């Protein structure tokens, strides 16, 4: 099959003017991130080769979900949550690495449309207080990003991509212990003269494995039985503690 594709490729090149199919190859050191008992974060190596001169940008996005952000205000002397804004489809994880600062590589409108950088996620407010202005929403947006950065789920700084010779490059991707499970998207851009030459999309699965996955699935699929088992375990512990204590006491 691969041979067939390779034979057919020159034909395509004749027809398609902007074909850069072989300009860029990307792969990950592991196809997935496994959350097991000893999981304390995981480092993945993204490596690749490019045929032509140019800079690189790598963007990693976690699965999207709607997120509620609340404002804390002082009410009768205590800090209470008041206004709420729900943003739709926020990435649960976000990191960017590049060979140079991204604003030097691509014009702002391209960065915006490709959503490169935490300030350019283009978050939409699904629900907001009726009186909220655009400025208010921006403040909530910035607050959301600060929270995600504090949880290490959004990268604070631009990651570095190391170029080895003219063709090879590599970057380390770090996934902290509180990552969400799901399908992650890794996009690698090859950039030349303020334009995207090629874009490669790689997928990465983050999932629970082993006993962790079994407990999690059981707790969600058989919640009632799980609760009963939790009680039985607790009762057994309490009972045996008492038995040990009485033996030692006398």
């Amino acid at each position, binding site marked *: 099959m691969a041979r067939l594709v390779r034979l057919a490729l020159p034909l395509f090149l004749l027809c398609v003017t902007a074909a850069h199919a072989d300009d860029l190859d990307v792969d990950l050191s592991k196809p997935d991130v496994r959350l097991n008992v000893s999981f304390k974060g995981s480092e993945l190596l993204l490596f690749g080769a490019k045929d032509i001169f140019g800079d690189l940008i790598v963007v990693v996005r976690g699965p999207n979900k709607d997120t509620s952000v609340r404002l804390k205000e002082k009410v009768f002397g205590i800090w209470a*949550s008041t206004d*709420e804004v729900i943003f739709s489809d926020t990435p649960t994880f976000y990191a960017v690495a590049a060979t140079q600062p991204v604003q030097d590589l691509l014009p702002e409108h391209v960065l915006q449309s490709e959503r490169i950088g935490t300030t350019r996620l283009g978050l939409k407010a699904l629900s907001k207080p009726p009186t909220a202005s655009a400025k208010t929403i921006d403040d909530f947006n910035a607050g959301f990003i600060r929270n995600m950065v504090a949880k290490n789920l959004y990268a604070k700084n631009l990651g570095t991509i190391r170029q080895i010779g003219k063709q090879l490059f590599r970057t380390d991707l770090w996934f902290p212990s509180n990552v969400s499970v799901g399908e992650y998207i890794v996009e690698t851009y090859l950039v030349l003269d303020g334009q995207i030459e090629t874009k490669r999309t790689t997928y990465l699965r983050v999932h629970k494995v082993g006993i962790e996955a079994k407990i999690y699935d059981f707790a969600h699929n058989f919640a*009632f039985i799980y609760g009963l088992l939790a009680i039985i375990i*607790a009762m057994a512990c309490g009972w045996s503690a008492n038995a040990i204590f009485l033996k030692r006491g006398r």
Partner: protein
Amino acid sequence: MQIYLPIAEISVNIFLLLGMGIGVGFLSGLFGVGGGFLMTPLLIFIGIPPAVAVGTGANLIVASSISGVLAHWKRGNVDLKMGFMLLIGGVLGSTLGVWLFTYLKTLGQIDLVIQLSYVVFLGVIGLLMLFESIRAMRASKTGPPPRKHHNFLQALPFKMRFRSSKLYVSGLLPIGIGFFVGMLSAIMGVGGGFVMIPAMIYLLGMPTSVVVGTSLFQIIFVMANVTVLQSIHNFSVDVVLSVLLLVGAVFGAQFGAKSGAKLKGEELRILLAVMVVGVCIKIGLDLTLTPSDFYVLGTIGGM
């Protein structure tokens, strides 16, 4: 050594959890309390999501109450009839409490309600205990305070006889107390002994000998109810977390009980009161000090 908790979805140092279990177990053994009011805030403090802290805390209290009630049971210090009446209210109250918990979570107010409940109840109980034990130390020769007989409480219908407690009171009274404490337990992730025991002594007029055993007896079932309901509605009981804390608590409680035997009753009560007020002040400060960020992430639809 880190361990990844499947329900809390974070990784925590295993020795920190064992240490917390030993510490809280020691104090609960020392003072003869469940320790929920220490464990739940501690869990939240180390970064466990509040819902998981409350759900798992309830599960832990099942264990410590079983362990405690067995000793009282052997001495016949459990008023079963009273326990069942309290339990009726407790199951209803805790069911409402878990429902309220889930609802407040969608409103984004659960953290505030948990913290406020802690400040109010620990503050009041702690201060009362402190004043009373100081007064008791000063005048240890005078007898215990006389039982109060509230007229309107005596006038309630459905009077029942409780033999072990030597009481003839309305069945509505224990049901009401159980209901209130059950609701509190579900929201705060505590056994509620610190509210239940004063209520039994001062509102019901039960003899002190059966108070602790009966309270522990009903806490087991109320907390078992909370565990199951939290598992179903919030998926917030983490058995891995629970087992690690229990292992520590089992050993801690042994040493605590031995150390407790060396101290005088009044000294113990003052120490406990100081600790209760301390936890209250810590949580109170968290509520009033300016937060590091004015924006916080909330939850949608109870998840």
